[in-house]
């Protein structure tokens, strides 16, 4: 009998002591959580699906409060959740820029050349491991659709050997951005229709040889832009989306049609 009492009281005492200690510690070490995080967390679906590109609903709520994610960043909650989150954050949901992913390569099979014939796995990462892929251009879209497979919303299609984003369907979750071995996909504001559809850092002559629609670094668009929105990064033109007004002047002067207006929505 005595043994049982000792065992029970020692273990019970230990449990009680630790319990009291922990509850005291939780008060002392309590972390102040921004109440907006809790409020946002409550209006989210709570599926922890990761479609926003973050680890889960908690991380998303945290990122919104810190300004790292947009109030309409939850693709599952959609507009309903965006409105509620916007109310918590005190901003207008409508005033938030709608963003979408964009594939910055237009080097379809018909206009680009290949180094070798690839007969391996239908996966961009696998293809990229063999001498950087089968395309002569080391920066171009390989067209095996790793981004398409990663897209939870069927917003990506492969046409003519390059990936395309159907912007109406895109919820800008960013999964395709991570799924591209060539880092060709960017999240851009939807209303900025003009993009340089080339990521080649090669010199103009090399780019020209590999692909008919690559940016050859001629700087004509830089001169043509009246708003100073285009600058050169090496031999690659870059459009500053903040300054771009969408006048389309650059498209008309580009000799290789590397700058295109995106209207692929279908």
């Amino acid at each position, binding site marked *: 009998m005595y*043994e049982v009492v*000792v*065992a029970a009281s*020692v*273990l019970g005492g*230990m*449990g009680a002591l*630790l*319990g009291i*200690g*922990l509850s005291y*510690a*939780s008060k002392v*070490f*309590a*972390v102040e959580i921004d109440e907006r995080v809790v409020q946002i967390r409550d209006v989210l679906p709570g599926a922890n699906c990761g479609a926003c590109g973050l680890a889960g609903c908690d991380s998303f709520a945290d990122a919104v409060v810190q300004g790292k994610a947009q109030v309409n960043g939850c693709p599952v909650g959609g507009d309903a959740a965006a409105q509620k989150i916007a109310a918590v954050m005190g901003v207008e949901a409508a005033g938030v820029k709608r963003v979408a992913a964009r594939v910055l390569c237009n080097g379809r099979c018909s206009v680009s050349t290949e180094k070798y014939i690839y007969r391996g*796995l239908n*996966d961009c*990462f*696998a293809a990229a*491991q063999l001498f950087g892929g089968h395309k002569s251009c080391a920066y171009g879209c390989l067209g095996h659709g790793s981004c398409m497979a990663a897209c939870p919303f069927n917003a990506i299609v492969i046409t003519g050997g390059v990936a395309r984003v159907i912007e109406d369907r895109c919820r800008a979750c960013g999964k395709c951005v991570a799924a591209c071995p060539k880092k060709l996909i960017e999240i851009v504001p939807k209303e900025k229709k003009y993009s340089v559809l080339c990521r080649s850092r090669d010199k103009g002559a090399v780019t020209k040889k590999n692909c008919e629609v690559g940016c050859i670094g001629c700087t004509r668009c830089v001169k043509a832009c009246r708003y100073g929105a285009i600058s050169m990064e090496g031999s690659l033109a870059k459009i500053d989306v903040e300054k771009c007004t969408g006048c389309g002047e650059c498209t008309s002067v580009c000799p290789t049609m590397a700058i295109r207006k995106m209207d692929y929505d279908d």
Partner: protein
Amino acid sequence: MIQSIVTAFLSAVLIENFVLVRFLGICPFLGVSKKINTALGMGAAVIFVMGVASGATWLLQEYVLKSFKIEYLQTIGFIVVIAALVQFVEMVIQKTSRQLYQALGVYLPLITTNCAVLGVCLINVQKGSDLLNSFLYGIFAGVGFTLAIVLFAGIRERLEYADVPQSLKGIPISLISASLVSLAFFGFQGLIK
């Protein structure tokens, strides 16, 4: 002294690797080994928890269980103490360092009373080690766990691109590769006489 520490290190990391030879801690080994980064985070958390738990349970064993002659309550007592301790450490980390919490904290609740952690503590008692040796053995066992999980994560990253037969895709091929890695580790048997 140094020689015995080196021996203990080799035996905990290679010869008696917790995951691959003793088959403890299989759950996180399979669960958190899809990417090398998360595997490293998990490994760091395990090293930390094993070290702390070894020390704490040694104290519990020597000063509480032995003095009341209730050593048979080892298992349950250890679980209670380790769980409480890890909870406490998690709170402290969350309060003091946000970066450390994000790197380590998310893994801590997963392994509060993992069988590998409990295993280290029970083996320490069986061996009759002193406080320092218990603590070191805990750290070394954690290093062994990290080695195993990082190696395996590297293999699984490659497996993603391998042409695996349909029926073996996913978990089956992971288990087969895990057993092959384990076989390889059995090759270390007899390294120290």
